[in-house]
């Protein structure tokens, strides 16, 4: 796996965790429904809840698989079977150390799933597995199966597009990008979120187009369609949105810069990568350094250059006040003149 795709893997891993969350949610819902029919939870429900608790309590993938397998062996055919099958398949993907074992679980359990939505989710996770192992042919054939069995939403195309880029299955990436582009309309946004304003629907719809186009352009470049790639980037650049630091909310500028590097246009590449290299993901800085070194023969002078770019691009920190755990208010205006490090975190 190269670094250029590792960032987008985060999104895929998120997909996995969201997937598991959905499985859990379905399980909880049916467990809640049960008491209306009879006063007590069935043996299956109780065992499933216990298994689910044990599953959540451990972070060890092998243990999670074992918990799900144990449940399946005790209750081979119940309304919980699909969810348990799903839980048996997913853990090994998250930190893929044993691809063969992960594949074996999918081969054994995926065909046993009956509910279409659980099956589709399992297929999405199998697509992630194919992308992580670079199994292009299997990914393309899976994509065909999935398309034949389901009505794809915008995000379904996106997931496959990113999996395809990860696996360097460029034709599939372009195909999925095009399909997602067809659904990346303001109208689709309005249909999905009924309280969204026309203006926002327009803006987010266009940003979706830029997101898909970014991947499409990168795939075109990798297929050797250099001019088409540059055309894709240029014609979609104005559709993207930027953070207040000037970072592209889509990977368009990063893929544009990386494509220009592949074409030997290093100065243009640095221009596209400039803000991303300062404030964006690490791969942008690495690409920028690559372009600099290719142009200058070494990375000499690079630190000075970055310093001047920082001076040029620096934005003021927005002022804010927040409370600490003792209830005291902290105002960033009180720290003017200090060097200030602001770190955003989530406790785990």
């Amino acid at each position, binding site marked *: 796996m190269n670094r250029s795709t590792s960032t987008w893997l985060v999104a895929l891993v998120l997909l996995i965790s969201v997937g598991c969350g959905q499985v859990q949610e379905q399980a909880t819902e049916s467990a809640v429904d049960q008491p209306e029919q009879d006063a007590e939870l069935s043996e299956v429900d109780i065992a499933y809840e216990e298994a689910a608790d044990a599953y959540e309590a451990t972070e060890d993938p092998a243990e999670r698989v074992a918990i799900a397998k144990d449940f399946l062996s005790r209750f081979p055919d119940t309304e919980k079977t699909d969810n348990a099958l799903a839980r048996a398949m997913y853990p090994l993907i998250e930190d893929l150390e044993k691809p063969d074992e992960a594949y074996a679980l999918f081969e054994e359990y995926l065909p046993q799933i009956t509910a279409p939505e659980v099956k589709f989710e399992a297929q999405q996770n199998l697509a992630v597995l194919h992308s992580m192992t670079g199994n292009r042919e299997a990914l393309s054939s899976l994509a065909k199966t999935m398309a034949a069995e389901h009505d794809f939403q915008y995000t379904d195309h996106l997931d496959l597009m990113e999996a395809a880029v990860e696996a360097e299955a460029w034709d599939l990436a372009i195909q999925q990008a095009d399909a997602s582009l067809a659904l990346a309309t303001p109208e689709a946004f309005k249909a999905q979120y009924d309280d969204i304003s026309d203006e926002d629907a327009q803006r987010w719809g266009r940003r979706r187009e830029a997101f898909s186009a970014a991947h499409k352009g990168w795939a075109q470049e990798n297929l050797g369609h250099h001019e088409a790639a540059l055309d894709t980037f240029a014609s979609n650049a104005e559709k993207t949105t930027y953070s207040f630091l000037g970072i592209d909310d889509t990977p368009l500028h990063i893929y544009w810069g990386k494509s220009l590097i592949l074409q030997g246009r290093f100065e243009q590449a640095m221009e596209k990568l400039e803000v991303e290299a300062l404030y964006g993901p690490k791969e942008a800085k690495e690409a920028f350094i690559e372009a600099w070194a290719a142009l200058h023969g070494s990375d000499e002078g690079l630190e000075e250059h970055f310093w001047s770019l920082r001076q040029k691009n620096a934005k003021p920190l*927005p002022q804010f006040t927040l409370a600490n755990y003792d209830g005291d208010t902290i105002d960033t205006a009180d720290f003017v003149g200090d060097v200030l490090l602001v770190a955003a975190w989530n406790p785990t």
Partner: protein
Amino acid sequence: MELPRLEPLWQKYQDQGLTIIAIDSNRDTERAQKFIAENNLTYHMLEDTEGEETVVGDKLQINGFPTSYLVDRQGRILYSHIGFDEGDEVKLEEEIRKLLES
């Protein structure tokens, strides 16, 4: 995790004008306080606001964690760090020193 690695920097440079603020964007008070106590974190630990406009998501436009901004004495964001890898604290210390001296 990034936060415990910031504590030595705070201890070392607070007298020279370094301030560190950490914001829990999830408002997961119980976990946050446990983590802070376990790691003896002594710099400013804040909770994000509830409701429509949040500091982390809306004002600072941060949506991946951990992310940090390093701000110079003129209040300008000169560095942003997305994620935190082994050894990143060395780079961060260089940047802090550079900003403290400039």
